[in-house]
């Protein structure tokens, strides 16, 4: 009997890649896509890498595909924006070996800066999209994606969402199908996209999509489940499960391919049900097309474009059921920097100096909220440095004297490098603080080009951020221990005063990194405590006040960084061995 295993959606996607005979996988970490690569790498048959950003990852996968093997790239939805340049043109070139882009959307914004819908990108790029509804389908659709990629000569997007990626379900495992590499043949009409050739390939794109519209009605991933025909749903992905939960007796057209739409199948389904609903998270991608064909249906009139859907949402909207139990009014518990996080130390100094920060994407984005309240802007990967440059060019160099750009080491390697080159080239000034914690922290500790280790665990030369900054012509580059408050303060004052661009690398490894354990814990000395609260200001979650106002430190949470100790004016906090 075939082995069954409970698998995370992302783990099942990786398994699908393995079974489909994938040979190359490239990615940049990003919630909720990260565990795809972390599972792909467990298969020795697949070469897997962390690329510095999604554009590079996509291009690596495209190159592998052109060489004749099955290849994939995986990324979160906003990563697809970064990769969109190669994606749009790979749509024209088509593939050698099958090529799949796994794009992980985040309805509900569990860990993202926007709620964009990858299906909109796919429509613009004219690339087909498959969307599974559980872990088993995640694996099966991955294999089907490679099949149609090769059959229709197109990259295919497998769209997942946070809920699917981070849910576990039972999966039946099959053997890997080893595939012979496609022999490489030089074909510049297919792979060199200069105008004359691209014109020809544009015709291919149109024909391919037309063929898929037709053939889609027969694809096994698209399925009409006819039951009670007084009510019918067109749905896909995780929302399909909510429909099955609330209306097990309804008729459902479950679309496994959400772009292009199988028009004939949809028209037939619509004609057989009395009342038709279209139930899709985020944008009305299916709905607008279906309605444009003159089909009556209800969708975004009653279902929101925002956030994640649920079964209760269906119960409320269609059955008028209200929840009996109301949530209790309780204090919010937003995410915070961990106890012992080096970013907290950097923000403590910036706050003291009353400096604004153009921020970036990473744990340090949490420096925007109280009590640190240092980060003023967060847009996308790499934007801290370039947006600070824009402010300077708009308002003059004095305007940014009390500003810095704050960017993590992984984000700097991702796209921050381009922004810094721009500042140098266009005679910008200002100070960039690279908060270098030697990892990609927020997504759960992935390596990158400056850590000296690959996804496969090989030790490689680490790109030296200090020497890189020097090499592009920045004279003032300073490395500081992120926990050395006096030196950090002095350095930030000096560097922000300059009329030149400068870089401060505030170094200290992420406190959650394996092996990075401070030897001590901090303990309060109650008789010395004056209850002033200076130690509480950075908002370390291990510190609270006792009823009498003195300080308590939770020994199970304290990581022993000593930041609170440095802030205490009365020596009322000491370190003790763990």
């Amino acid at each position: 009997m075939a082995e069954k295993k409970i698998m995370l959606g992302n783990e099942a996607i990786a398994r699908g890649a393995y079974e489909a005979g994938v040979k190359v996988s490239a990615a940049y970490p990003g919630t909720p896509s990260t565990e795809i690569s972390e599972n792909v790498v467990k298969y020795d048959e697949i070469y897997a890498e962390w690329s510095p950003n999604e554009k590079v990852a996509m291009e690596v996968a495209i190159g592998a595909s052109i060489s004749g093997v099955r290849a994939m790239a995986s990324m979160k939805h906003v990563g697809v924006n970064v990769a969109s340049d190669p994606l749009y043109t790979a749509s024209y070139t088509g593939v050698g070996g099958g090529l799949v882009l796994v794009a992980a959307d985040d309805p509900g914004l569990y860990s993202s800066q926007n709620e964009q819908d990858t299906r909109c990108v796919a429509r613009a790029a004219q690339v087909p999209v498959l969307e599974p509804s559980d872990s088993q389908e995640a694996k099966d659709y991955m294999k089907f994606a490679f099949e149609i990629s090769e059959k229709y000569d197109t990259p295919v997007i497998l769209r997942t969402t946070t809920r699917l990626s981070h849910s576990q379900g039972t999966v039946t495992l099959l053997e890997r199908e080893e595939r012979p590499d496609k022999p490489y043949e030089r074909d510049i009409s297919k792979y060199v996209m200069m105008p004359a050739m691209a014109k020809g390939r544009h015709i291919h794109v149109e024909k391919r999509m037309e063929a898929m519209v037709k053939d889609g009605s027969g694809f096994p991933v698209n399925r009409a489940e006819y039951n009670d025909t007084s009510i019918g749903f067109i749905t896909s992905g995780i929302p399909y499960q909510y429909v099955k939960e609330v209306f097990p007796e309804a008729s459902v057209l479950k679309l496994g391919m959400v772009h292009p739409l199988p028009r004939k199948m949809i028209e037939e389904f619509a004609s057989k049900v009395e009342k038709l609903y279209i139930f899709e998270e985020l944008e009305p991608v299916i709905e607008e097309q279906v309605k444009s064909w003159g089909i009556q249906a209800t969708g975004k009139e009653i279902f929101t474009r925002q956030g994640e859907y649920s079964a209760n949402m269906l119960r409320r909207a269609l059955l008028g059921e209200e929840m009996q139990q109301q949530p209790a009014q309780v204090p919010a518990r937003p995410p915070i920097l961990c106890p012992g996080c080096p970013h907290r130390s950097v923000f403590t100094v910036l706050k003291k100096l009353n400096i604004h920060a153009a921020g970036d994407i990473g744990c340090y984005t949490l420096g925007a909220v109280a009590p640190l309240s240092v980060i003023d802007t967060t847009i996308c990967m790499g934007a801290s440095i370039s947006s600070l440059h824009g402010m300077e060019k708009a308002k003059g160099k004095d305007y940014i004297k009390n500003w810095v750009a704050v960017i993590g080491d992984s984000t700097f390697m991702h796209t921050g490098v381009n922004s810094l080159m721009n500042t140098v080239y266009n005679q910008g000034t200002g100070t960039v603080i690279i908060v270098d914690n030697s990892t990609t922290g927020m997504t759960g500790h992935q390596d990158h080009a400056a850590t000296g280790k690959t996804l496969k665990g090989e030790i490689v030369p680490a790109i030296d951020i200090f020497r890189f900054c020097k090499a592009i012509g920045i004279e003032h580059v300073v490395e500081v221990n992120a926990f050395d408050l006096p030196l950090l303060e002095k350095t930030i004052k000096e560097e922000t005063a300059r009329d030149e661009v400068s870089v401060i690398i505030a170094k200290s490894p992420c406190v959650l990194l394996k092996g990075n354990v401070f030897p001590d814990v901090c303990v309060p000395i109650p008789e010395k405590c004056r209850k002033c609260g200076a130690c509480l200001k950075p908002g370390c979650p291990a510190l609270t006040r006792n009823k009498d106002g003195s300080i308590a430190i939770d020994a199970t949470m304290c990581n022993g960084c000593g930041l609170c100790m440095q802030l205490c004016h009365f020596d009322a906090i000491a370190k003790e061995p763990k």
Partner: protein
Amino acid sequence: MMTKSIMIVGVGGQGTLLTSRILGGIIQEAGYDVKLSEVHGMAQRGGSVVTFVRYGDKVAEPIVEEGQADVLIAFERLEALRYAHFLKKDGVIVINDWRIDPITVVTGAAEYPENIIEELGKKYKVYAINAMEEAIRLGNAKAFNTVVLGMAAKHMDFEKDAWLKVIEKTVPGKTVEINQKAFLLGYR
């Protein structure tokens, strides 16, 4: 069997994922269909976290919604209160009697509610244990999750020995014994 819904709630970093692995393991051993849904990424950094577990003959949606949970396993008091409305009318709450102040309380923007366990007890069947103290007594504070799980296991459909076997299969080798002890301490 009707689908049964379990929730595990706590504070990011408390180790809810290991508990859900054990739970997933025993459900699979018993041959049920199962879906689990977890929180990764930003929400793990000290924020409120929730894991949904659903099992039965055939499970559709992977999440547990308001008014649907049979058992709520809470690793912290405030989180029990936050998610109590997810319980069915006759649902059971198992609480680790432990307080972790959210940043909103630390900064003084909000107050930590008093008498949570007593208040919840008026509406639901509540079982509370200071699992942290119990686990420290056993010699490893980190095993507190398994104490709480042991207590919750009383309200699920699996035999004691099956639990112990799954713990052995799921937790790191060195911690099997302490986790089994912790489980039994909660299960008594």
